[in-house]
């Protein structure tokens, strides 16, 4: 059985974000790119499935500008993925078009049983592609998953919701599962892994050869703004007792939040 892992490349969290000249995106010059942290859990899980004999093949798939996408896919190959597919597309496609293209590419590969994603890409914050992908493939989904158990034709997953409550969900395969932190501890790519990954070929697909297209774009992010400068902090002087009394007063009378 084949396992697909969807991975996205995102700016490293330490990267300073600058806004592009037209205001409709970020300036990518000088940005350090990394694999979306939640997707690392998905890759690790897929490789573990193969190692324990529950899957025969791990296929990493990523959509975005070719050069960047290839870099992330190499990382997945170096971690242990068997094959990689790059869907070459422009910057800033929306969740809808992304999910549609991923679904088309996965369907074309065939024999999909399990599709792993991250619960959220930390650039666009949408938490949408996993569910949309499942809908387009006509299969069930569960996201924010911190535990997966496998049986032949189904998986049982644990999803954490409000107040620390856990839902135990059984999905009939094929299914899309979105990984949360806590699912596993992603491995680092080993040196032999990196060497081996260099020799593997990445299959490239142009997005316009898939059953989708720019006409499908539903949303566009525009008018990017940096957060307004916060007024400077008010440091409250005095010993602990005096400061807390003053703080209580400020919270009630000035900030009016208690």
């Amino acid at each position, binding site marked *: 059985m084949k396992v697909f892992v969807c991975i996205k490349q995102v700016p490293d969290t330490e990267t300073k974000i600058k806004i592009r000249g037209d205001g409709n995106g970020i300036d990518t010059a000088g940005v350090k790119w990394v694999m979306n942290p939640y997707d690392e859990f998905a890759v690790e899980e897929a490789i573990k499935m193969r190692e324990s004999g529950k899957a025969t093949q791990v296929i990493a798939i990523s959509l975005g500008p070719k050069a960047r996408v290839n870099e992330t896919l190499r990382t997945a190959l170096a971690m242990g993925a068997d094959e990689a597919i790059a869907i070459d597309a422009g910057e800033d496609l929306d969740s809808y078009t992304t999910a549609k293209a991923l679904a088309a590419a996965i369907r074309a590969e065939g024999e999909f049983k399990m599709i792993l994603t991250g619960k959220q890409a930390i650039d666009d914050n949408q938490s949408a592609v996993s569910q949309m992908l*499942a809908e387009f493939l006509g299969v069930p989904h569960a996201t924010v998953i911190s535990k997966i158990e496998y049986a032949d034709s189904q998986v049982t997953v644990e999803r954490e919701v409000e*107040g620390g409550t856990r839902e135990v969900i059984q999905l009939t395969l094929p299914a899309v599962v979105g990984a949360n932190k806590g699912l596993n501890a992603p491995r680092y790519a080993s040196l032999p892994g990196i060497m081996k990954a260099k020799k593997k070929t990445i299959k490239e697909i142009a997005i316009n050869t898939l059953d989708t297209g720019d006409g499908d774009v539903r949303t566009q992010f525009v008018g990017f703004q940096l957060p307004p400068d916060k007024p400077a902090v008010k*440091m409250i002087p005095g010993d*602990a*007792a005096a400061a807390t009394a003053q703080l209580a007063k400020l*919270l009630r009378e000035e900030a009016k939040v208690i």
Partner: protein
Amino acid sequence: MSTITVFAEFANGQLKKSALELLTAARASGQKIQAIALGSGAKGLVDQLAQYGVDEAYLGDNAAFDQYNPEVFSKAVGDVLAAQKPATVLAASTMLGRDLFPRIAARLKAGIASDCTELNLAGGELKVRRPMYAGKCTAGVNFKSSDTRIIVMRPNQLPTGQPEGKKSTQVHDVAAPAGDLKTLIKQVVKGASSKLDLSEANIIVSGGRGMKEPANFKMLEELADVLGATVGASRAVVDAGWVPHNMQVGQTGKTVAPTLYIAAGISGAIQHLAGMSGSKVIVAINKDANAPIFQKATYGIVGDALEVVPLMTAEFKKLLH
């Protein structure tokens, strides 16, 4: 006139605050309002919905909806929306809303904007903004098609209006979908916390490594009890095993935007700030006057959190009780 459909979550027979926020925004827009509510007791919401100006209520008063199941909910809600074709759908960015609406958007071929923090429906327009890149910037959203547009709003971003007057709300039944399911909820293990979830809390008291040891989180619990707050934590203390992961605030934890966020013994690393810098008022207590958290704070106290937190509890008790 175009239509706004609000997905209204409720608990114990009462609309959740996040639902009232959405209904208040919809009511002010002057457009036709529909509401969808699913679960046992939904019929009992009619009066509340009427007071928030709902013209038509789609209610699934059925135990089949008591536990969220993506397959069941996407079919039931998707069918209503596909038939009604509202211009705008509003839902709250709860665990349920975040999971459900992208799937419905795909089904309806609709555009979706998740986790929005600003919403403006005045004059028939739809303006939303949302944080991107872990809160380092915000962006507006252009909906490119004239189809349904789905907005999933973060709780605590919009005001709640008072119930007023009474519309004569038309009630429609939402039946539970029949047929075999590929998604089964086998078990629900209730969490220990009776407090509001971090993502919905209006006040949060968070502790970091500066609390020194796990037992000292008791002090934060006591402060939270006085304020009706929920307790959060930095990743450092989660990783150290002091508190469970569901209490973590930040980039790999929860994103929160309460009215008041109190950070005790938290340095203010960029990944922590990513999860809480949208808070309206931030209070920082740190013994290091140069801690980065002070750059984001509204009010700061340089001092020992173990001394300051209990004093705050006593002070707020005097003020509030």
